[in-house]
């Protein structure tokens, strides 16, 4: 556990303009470049959930692809558990779920897991048991023989997550894991991420859905125009040091009045927000959807 799951050091990735990677021969002829990632450094410690957040085109996916060995760095390095990201052995410990994954639509959920399991060297009973375990984990037992062409987006995302962890990797890389998924599916994926964390698996995720990152990540890096702008533990980044809040339950109007009076007496202290706390729309939706499910059962 001594080595970090991901260690990116001074990573720079430069593309020639147009279509990156599409034409190897053009490199150096057009002479026009775009710096997608600029001197980026960060670490994902073993067992933690790390979120890289940033707007579209900020360099998140490029960074991820370098870590996965799908791209070579122009400068700097990326290591996975101490191995160079380009080393095929590093991918023994990586599970990857791309954004909006399209697996082979002609395969069933079970066949998909079998295919990826075999690629990771699993076979026989070990593979079969692992498939059963994963289908149960991602709640797709009922759809195991259905072809992926008939899966919803959320189901695809969950089977994608299952294939990502088929070989019990030490690191799972998720690219926009809940993009386009409904709130119920999104919650399921979030729960799965937390489950992975409980199992000691490091998670490196990229997202622009900040609330989601906030719910699951231990550490967060904010990337913008290819550069790391802020990085650190989530609690530190999001807490406002000169503010404090507490929520009371069943407090009488009299007690509230007394608290207000007490605060007013203190110089330099002001109440910036008061009233009934509101639930989020997501929580409300999930509550309704959850009770509806129960009714149907």
């Amino acid at each position, binding site marked *: *556990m001594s*080595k970090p799951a991901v260690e990116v050091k001074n990573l720079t990735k430069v593309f020639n303009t147009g*279509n*990156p*990677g*599409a*034409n*190897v021969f053009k490199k150096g002829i057009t002479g026009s470049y775009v710096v997608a990632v600029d001197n980026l450094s960060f670490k994902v410690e*073993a067992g933690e959930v790390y979120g890289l957040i940033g707007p579209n085109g900020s360099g998140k996916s490029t960074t991820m*692809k370098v870590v*996965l*060995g*799908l*791209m*070579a760095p122009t400068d700097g390095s990326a290591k996975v*558990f101490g*191995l160079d990201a380009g080393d*095929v*052995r590093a*991918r*023994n*410990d*990586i*599970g*990857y*779920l*791309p954004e*909006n*994954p*399209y*697996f*082979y639509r*002609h*395969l069933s959920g079970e*066949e998909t897991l079998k*295919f*990826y399991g*075999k*690629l*990771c*060297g699993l*076979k026989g009973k070990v593979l079969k048991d692992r498939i059963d375990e994963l289908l149960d984990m991602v709640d797709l037992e009922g759809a195991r023989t259905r072809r992926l062409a008939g899966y919803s987006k959320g189901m695809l995302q969950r089977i*994608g997550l299952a*294939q*990502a962890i088929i*070989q*019990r*990797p*030490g*690191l799972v*890389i998720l690219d926009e894991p809940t993009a386009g998924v409904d709130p119920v599916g999104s919650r399921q994926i979030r729960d799965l991420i937390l489950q992975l964390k409980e*199992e*000691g*698996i490091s998670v490196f995720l990229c997202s622009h859905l900040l609330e989601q990152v906030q719910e699951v990540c231990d550490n967060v890096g904010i990337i913008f125009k290819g550069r790391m702008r802020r990085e650190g533990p989530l609690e530190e980044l999001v807490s406002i040091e000169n503010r404090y809040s507490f929520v009371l339950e069943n407090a009488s109007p009299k007690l509230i009045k007394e608290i207000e009076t007490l605060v007013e007496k203190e110089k330099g202290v002001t109440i910036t927000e008061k009233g009934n706390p509101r639930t989020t729309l997501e929580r409300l939706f999930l509550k309704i959807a959850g009770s509806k499910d129960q009714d149907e059962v």
Partner: protein
Amino acid sequence: MTTFTETKVKIPVLSLSRVWTIAAGTMTQLVRMKTFYFLLIFAVLVAGVGYLDFRLATAASQLETIKKISFGTMDLFAWLYAIVATALLIPRDLEDRTLYTILSKPVRRVEYLVGKLLGVLILIGLSLGLMFCLCMVMLAIKHGDLVSSELIKLSSDPNITQVEIEEQIALINEQGPRKELGVAALASFLKSSVVAAMTILISTFASSSLFTIITSIFFFLIGHAHGMMTDYWLHKTEGNLVIRLATKVMKLLIPDFQLYSFSEGVVTGATIVPAVVWSMGFLTAGYLFIFLLISLMIFMYKEF
């Protein structure tokens, strides 16, 4: 708990089990994409050949024509299938991002390429096998019919001896279903293998399946002009250095697909020289190796 700290095992340069997994996946993919439907079209075509208007032909030339149409169509279907099926593989994996999930597993790029090619080759082999069987069955039926009617006709002529009847039947038998025709199917397989490997190479730098298909067909057509290029542009265009040079370059770069048309000769009854067939197999292996090597050179460092 994971075992990631202990998994720094050695990974072989080429794992046959991973290659096979990808090959098997490719086969399933192509079968479930219903690419095999072309076999039905072929079956209908071959069955229809027997009903063509042959009133002007002798029994032997009827069989010869049936063979030529069936085996010619088989060859055409095989190379077309090789191009289309192969062109659907890598560009599609890239478009669908399936390639990301495969290459993010401990899979070497060489394994991916070899697996894809192997999958296509096995499917081409299977389809050719099926088409060959269909041709032979059809030919056997037609041959049986023609021999019986010819026997009746010849036996009723008092001026024809038994030996001569046998001679005539032997002439018909020569055009009937013979095991030598398997070499014609083998020729089609060798040709389609080279076509598939060339298509894989093109698809490693192509931007879409359509581009891959068009470019492959273009090179395939040029590959049939080697003989013409040599005869007309290389030997007969005296003095025109540019044309001669361009012809030489083309000949060096593009495979000579015309050589693989020896299936036509086999079908029309040419004597099969085993050494030539072996040489063609050897040449095919060379093409496959070189195309795979260059594909790998491009694909190895390709960024996705």
